[in-house]
């Protein structure tokens, strides 16, 4: 079926496009976008009336956990991709910390095959850095590249050994694919459950200091300089990490970084149930809220401000959800015993738009950080082996001939977050009960509707 998205506000930062008008998708590809002068395509179209709505390239998530294989009680590729579609994401890069982990061709192919048969958006698995995520020996990165991974990560675990990290970076040079590190000095963060700061002191919880992240960010940057390889820092959460990244970029190193919606919008005080800063809280239903337990932890307001600034000056390249679904049992327990993670795909846009509505972030910048900037991070650079990217050309953009991946959202529609209506199996969200402004109305993948809001009605048209 060919699609005509009619009368929307088309925003495509990859080509500086900002216009009201129509967008045509024929045979799964973008074929005509306002304000093109050429003749519009002819034929039968299903019409999405998009007046008053924003029309963007489909969002690309660099970092999510789909849990399959191995943890299907938390999420499956079927449920996770539906959550993605509901959140406006058309491409997911999923982390390899499954059971078994994505450290062999067989598991890569399993994820690809399952995504093909059961998924509703594009899924690209990230491969392991080390065999079995053990941090001891390198995974067969060549085999993984051949099977179709576009990056390597041991996410969930940092690469503890500096020597192994050096070798991973060096070895990756042959394939031109980035190494993504979850930066955490485990000796420093040991047993920590939240940010080290006044809230942790007040609640008697063991803290994870900012230095636990910064020490490894500094190490990784030094190793990126030593090896000349591409390094991508996952979920940056502290002002200190931002400073280190800024210096690395000033030096011209091949270092990129991402930040999550929750680190941009929430602070450590959320663990006490508060999102604004007031000193004297009394115990509420949200004290020790395990839905605000995430790694890296929600940090201070100073850190949050630094992350926002870094996003604006491109020190941080992209926004990634770190969607980490868990079961109720994983979260309904003692704070120390609860799992780390937030189920974030379905709330990402709504909470990021709160930054736009409050004047903290520009809408175009936000869209570029969700679309073409993440794609640029995954471009393969100077690979002498397996130089073909598994990602098709044209993700994150609405240029002619690009895949017909489009996200359509209403920036001012208000809704209340109800985890029971999530498509994700993970109901673990710190936004439960919160009113968000901005909701996805339709998500199109290769010209097919992967998601449509009930209130949106399609019409037929032929020309």
């Amino acid at each position: 079926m060919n699609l005509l998205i009619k009368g929307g506000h088309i925003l495509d930062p990859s080509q500086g496009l900002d216009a009201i008008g129509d967008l045509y998708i024929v045979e799964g590809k973008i074929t005509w976008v306002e304000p093109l002068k050429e003749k519009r395509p002819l034929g039968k179209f299903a019409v999405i009336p998009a007046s008053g709505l924003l029309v963007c390239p489909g969002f690309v998530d660099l970092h999510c956990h789909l849990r399959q294989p191995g943890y299907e009680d938390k999420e499956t590729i079927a449920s996770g991709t539906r959550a993605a579609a509901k959140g406006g994401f058309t491409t997911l890069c999923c982390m390899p910390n499954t059971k078994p982990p994505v450290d062999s061709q067989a598991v890569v192919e399993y994820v690809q095959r399952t995504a093909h048969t059961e998924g509703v958006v594009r899924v690209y698995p990230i491969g392991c850095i080390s065999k079995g995520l053990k941090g001891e020996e390198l995974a067969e990165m060549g085999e993984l590249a051949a099977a179709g991974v576009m990056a390597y990560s041991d996410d969930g675990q940092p690469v503890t050994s500096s020597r192994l990290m050096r070798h991973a970076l060096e070895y990756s040079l042959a394939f031109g694919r980035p190494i993504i590190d979850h930066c955490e000095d485990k000796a420093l963060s040991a047993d920590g459950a939240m940010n080290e700061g006044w809230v942790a002191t007040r609640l008697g919880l063991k803290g994870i200091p900012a230095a636990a992240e910064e020490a490894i960010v500094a190490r990784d940057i030094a190793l990126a300089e030593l090896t000349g390889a591409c390094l991508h820092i996952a979920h940056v959460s502290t002002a200190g990490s931002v400073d280190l990244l800024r210096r690395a970029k000033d030096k011209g190193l091949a270092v990129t970084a991402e930040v999550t919606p929750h680190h941009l919008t929430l602070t450590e005080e959320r663990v006490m149930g508060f999102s604004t800063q007031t000193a004297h809280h009394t115990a509420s239903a949200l004290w020790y809220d395990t839905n605000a337990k995430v790694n890296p932890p929600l940090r201070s307001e100073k850190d949050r401000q630094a992350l926002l600034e870094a996003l604006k000056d491109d020190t941080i390249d992209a926004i990634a959800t770190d969607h980490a679904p868990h079961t109720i049992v994983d979260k309904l327990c003692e704070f120390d015993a609860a799992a780390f993670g937030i189920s974030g795909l379905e709330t990402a846009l709504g909470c990021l738009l709160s930054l736009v509505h409050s004047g903290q972030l520009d809408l175009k910048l936000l869209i570029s950080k969700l679309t073409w900037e993440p794609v640029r991070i995954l471009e393969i650079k100077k690979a002498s082996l397996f130089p073909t990217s598994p990602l098709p050309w044209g993700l994150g953009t609405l240029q002619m001939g690009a895949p017909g991946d489009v996200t359509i959202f209403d920036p001012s529609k208000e809704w209340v977050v109800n985890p029971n209506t999530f498509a994700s199996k993970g109901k673990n969200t710190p936004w439960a009960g919160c009113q968000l402004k901005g909701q996805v109305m339709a998500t199109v993948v290769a010209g097919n509707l992967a998601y449509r809001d009930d209130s949106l009605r399609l019409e037929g048209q032929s020309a």
Partner: protein
Amino acid sequence: MRTNSLIKMERHHIIDLDDFSQEEIALIFATTDAMKEILSREIRRVPTLRGKTIVTLFYEPSTRTRVSFELAAKNLGADVVNVTSSTASVAKGESIIDTMRTLEALGADVIVIRHFQSGVPCLMAQHLQISVINAGDGCHAHPSQALLDLYTIREKLGHIEGLKVVIVGDILHSRVARSNIWGLSAMGAQVVLCGPPTLIPQELRRPQPLKGGECPFPPLTIQENLDRALEEADVVMVLRLQKERQEGGLLPSLREYIQLYQLNSARLSRAHLHALVMHPGPMNEGIEITPEVAHGPQSVVEDQVTNGVAVRMALLYMVTGGKG
């Protein structure tokens, strides 16, 4: 009962002292006075809580706190059920939510909970209709201990406002210290924390004011030199030092700790003559405190234990609605 006129308790749970006002603490003192009067009678029992069931649920061994609550409940005529993590009812693997819901369904009126992880009493209060009293959770809070400390100070020195109270030792891991910081500050005492920097939370050593200049903690003085901290002190609270702190890399040796932070007679002489020596127990005599000081004329450790029962009677009375 006489206390009827004294208190109208709104508080359904007692989790920490951080939101208690001076007036509310004074009200608890008045109720405790009435309970002490009961304890001084020939028959030290009243039927105030007859028909009520109090469950003590202890995930961490603490004979003295459990027995203190048990006696308090029995003195008020309540039935007491003791559940510890070694008994079948808190079998390994059973979730704490299931355990607490079971106890509620079985008809408990109050749960007195001790847990090694911070926040568990809060979790219970969020999920249960019945009252929850925190008998100590992780490094978070131990409100009944702080209240009995405050009560003992008031009883011995007549007032709390304006007193210099030094808390010595492992502040970092101490729920007793944390609750006392809130309670003492609410009552107008000047609180001095003393210990090696590794055992004092960074946030208390280097407080960062929040946006708007507010401070998330009451005003505190940090003094790493115990001799100096003790000058002009009215009260010295000594905390128990866990021997594991050395293995955790927080202390070089017990020997050095003793040299720098043990409360001995020579050091105590720097404090006021009337200064009280307190300890939440159990004491490591010879480590954080010398036997001479622990059992000397200034020690009020035994009064703390006695007052503990009366304070806990007051708390049980209050959370059950204060109806006599």
